[in-house]
C-alpha cells in the first residue's frame, strides 16, 4: 500500500505539536503502508532526530528556501516529491502554515482535499474523512476516492502518542524551488501587548458572543474582579474591538491552563477550546444546551449569562457579608 506522507510543521527552530498529532493519526491510518515524515528545513539534521521515532522514514529536504515557512517553495518541493513517490495521502496541519499551503497544493496535484479533518480512515485508495461545519454544530463525512488525498488535520485534536519506530533518514533533493518566486518571507513578529498576561492568572473569566454588546462589559468586568479573575475572551469579542487581542484565548490567541476557567456565553468553537481545555476546572454558562463548550466543561449551566451573572454576584455578596 502507498505511503502516507506527513508534512512536518516547524517554526523558529522547533517542531510544532501538531506534527506529532498528525504522525500519531497517520500511524493508525497506514495499514500496510509506511508513514513518511517530510521535513523541509534549512538544515534537516537539527530537526530530524525529533521526528524519526514517530515515522518509518524521514524524507529530509534541506535548503535555505525552507528556513522559514513559505508555501511557494514548500509547494514546489512537495509537488515534485509526490509526483515521484506517489503517496496515498499527504497530511498537512490545518494551521496558519498549512492553511496557506493545503488548498493550492491540492490544486497543483489535482488531488481531492478535505480541510479541518477530525477523523479519518482508509480502505485501499479511498479515504473517508470527518470534519466540522457550522462552528461544530454539525459533522460532515467526506470521501476522497482517488490517491493522493490531501488532508488538512485540525490542531489539538489527535492526542500525540509515543512511538519508537526509529525512522530511517533519507536526504532528498528538491532541485530549484526559488526561480520565478512571487512571494517572499520577511519576518515573524509578536502582536504588540499592553501588559495584560492572561496566562499568569489562576482564575480566568472568558466571555464570548453571548455578551451581545459592549455596554454589557462592566457586568463581567466587575464579576471577574470580585472573584479575583482576569477577564479573557473568545475571538468575536476581540474582533469587535471590545477587548484587546492579548486577552484572546484560542489557537490564534493564547493557550491558558488556569486552575479555574469560567466561560460565559462562549459556544466552544474548537479554536477557542484548543486554548483553554487544559484548565483544571471549567464552568460553562451558555443558553444553548447543545453548545460544544459543554463537552469540555466540568460544570454546566444552561441559561442566559445576563441573568446568571447578576444573580451570582448577589449570592457572592451575601456569602462575603
Amino acid at each position, binding site marked *: 500500500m502507498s505511503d502516507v506522507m506527513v508534512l512536518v510543521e516547524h*517554526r523558529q527552530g522547533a517542531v510544532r505539536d501538531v506534527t506529532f498529532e498528525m504522525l500519531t493519526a497517520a500511524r493508525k491510518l497506514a495499514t500496510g503502508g509506511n508513514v513518511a515524515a517530510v521535513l523541509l528545513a534549512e538544515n534537516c539534521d537539527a530537526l530530524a532526530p525529533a521526528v524519526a521515532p514517530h515515522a518509518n522514514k524521514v524524507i529530509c529536504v534541506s535548503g535555505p528556501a525552507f528556513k522559514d*515557512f*513559505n508555501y*511557494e517553495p514548500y509547494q514546489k518541493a512537495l509537488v515534485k516529491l509526490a509526483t515521484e513517490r506517489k503517496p496515498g495521502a499527504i497530511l498537512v496541519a*490545518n*494551521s*496558519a*502554515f498549512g*492553511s*496557506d499551503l493545503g*488548498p*493550492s497544493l*491540492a*490544486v497543483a496535484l*489535482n488531488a*481531492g482535499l478535505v*480541510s479541518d479533518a477530525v477523523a479519518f480512515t482508509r480502505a485501499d485508495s479511498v479515504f473517508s474523512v470527518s470534519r466540522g461545519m*457550522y*462552528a461544530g454544530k*454539525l*459533522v*460532515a*463525512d*467526506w*470521501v476522497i*476516492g482517488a490517491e493522493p488525498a490531501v488532508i488538512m488535520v485540525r*490542531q489539538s485534536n489527535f492526542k500525540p502518542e509515543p512511538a519508537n519506530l526509529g525512522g530511517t533518514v533519507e536526504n532528498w533533493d528538491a532541485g530549484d524551488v526559488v526561480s520565478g518566486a*512571487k*512571494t*517572499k*518571507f*520577511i519576518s*515573524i*513578529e*509578536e502582536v504588540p501587548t499592553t501588559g495584560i498576561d492572561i496566562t499568569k492568572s489562576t*482564575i480566568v473569566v472568558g466571555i464570548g*458572543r453571548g455578551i451581545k454588546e459592549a455596554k454589557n462589559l462592566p457586568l463581567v468586568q466587575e464579576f471577574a474582579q470580585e*472573584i*479575583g479573575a482576569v477577564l479573557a475572551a473568545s*475571538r468575536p469579542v476581540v474582533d469587535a474591538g471590545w477587548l484587546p*487581542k*492579548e486577552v484572546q484565548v484560542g489557537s*490564534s*490567541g493564547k493557550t491558558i491552563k488556569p486552575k*479555574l476557567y469560567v466561560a460565559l456565553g462562549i459556544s466552544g468553537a474548537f479554536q477557542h477550546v484548543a486554548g483553554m481545555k487544559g484548565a483544571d476546572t471549567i464552568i*460553562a454558562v451558555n443558553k444553548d444546551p447543545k453548545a460544544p463548550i459543554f*463537552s469540555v466543561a*466540568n*460544570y454546566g*449551566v*444552561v*441559561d442566559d449569562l445576563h441573568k*446568571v451573572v447578576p*444573580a*451570582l454576584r*448577589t*449570592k*457572592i455578596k451575601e*456569602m*462575603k457579608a
Partner: protein
Amino acid sequence: MEIAVCLKRVPDTAEADVKVDATGKDIVRDKLAFTINEADNYALEEALLAKEKHNANVTLVSVGPKPAEEVLRMGLAKGGTAAARIDSEGIGDADGIGLARVLAAWFKDKSFDLIFTGAIASDDGNSQVGPALAELLGLPHAAYVTKLDIQNGKAVVKRELEGGFLEVKELATPCVVTIQTGGNTPRYASIMGIKRAGAKPIDQAAPTKTESKTQLTRVYVPEVVSAAEMIEGSIEEKAAKLATLLKEKGAV
C-alpha cells in the same frame, strides 16, 4: 487599480438550532436568517480601504442563487463599484476546490491587481477557496491576512499565526489575499449608499460545470459527549450552587 472581492451569503447559525434536512447532506434553511459571511465582510472593508487609498475600482462577485444579490447590494451600498452574480444552479455538489474552479472560470478573462476573499466561511469552515483560486489562476496568495499595504506594486501582508504572532511577507501583484476577521472595522452602509446601490446593475453569469474530487456522504449533529455536571433549578438556585462551587475552587 482593479480590485475584486468574493462574497458569500451564509445562514446565520451562531445562535440558531441547526437541523439536518431530508437529503441528509444539507441543513434546513427556510427558518434561518442569511447574512454576509463574517470574514468576507472584513475582506470587503479591506478592499474599500484600498479603494480609497489607491483610487481603485472594487468589483464584487458572489456564487449563489438569486438571493445572493443581497450581499452584493450591501457591498455596492458600502462603496463597491460593480457587482456580478454567478448562478449556483447545478453546482450544488461542488466542494471547496470545485467552487474555486467556478470562480476561476469567471476570473480567467478579467484583469485584477488584487483579489480578496474571506479567510474562512462560517458555514462550511472550509478555508479553501482563496488559495485554490490563486493556484488555478497562476497567482501568488496569502491566507489569514489581517493587515495589507500596497508598496511599489507589491502587497506587504501580515498573516495571523498561532499563539499571538504575525508573519510578514511580500507578494508580487496581481495576487489573491484571504482576509481574517478582526484586522479592520467593517463600515455600515449609509442610507444614501443603500439608495444608490438599489439602482446599480448586477451582472449575471452562468456557472461552469466542474468536477469535484471529493464527495459529501452525510452531515449529522454530533453527540455532545459531556461529562459536565449540569447545575439546574431556578436562577437563584443555579446562582447559589455556582457561588458554592466558586468558593470550593477558591474564587470567593
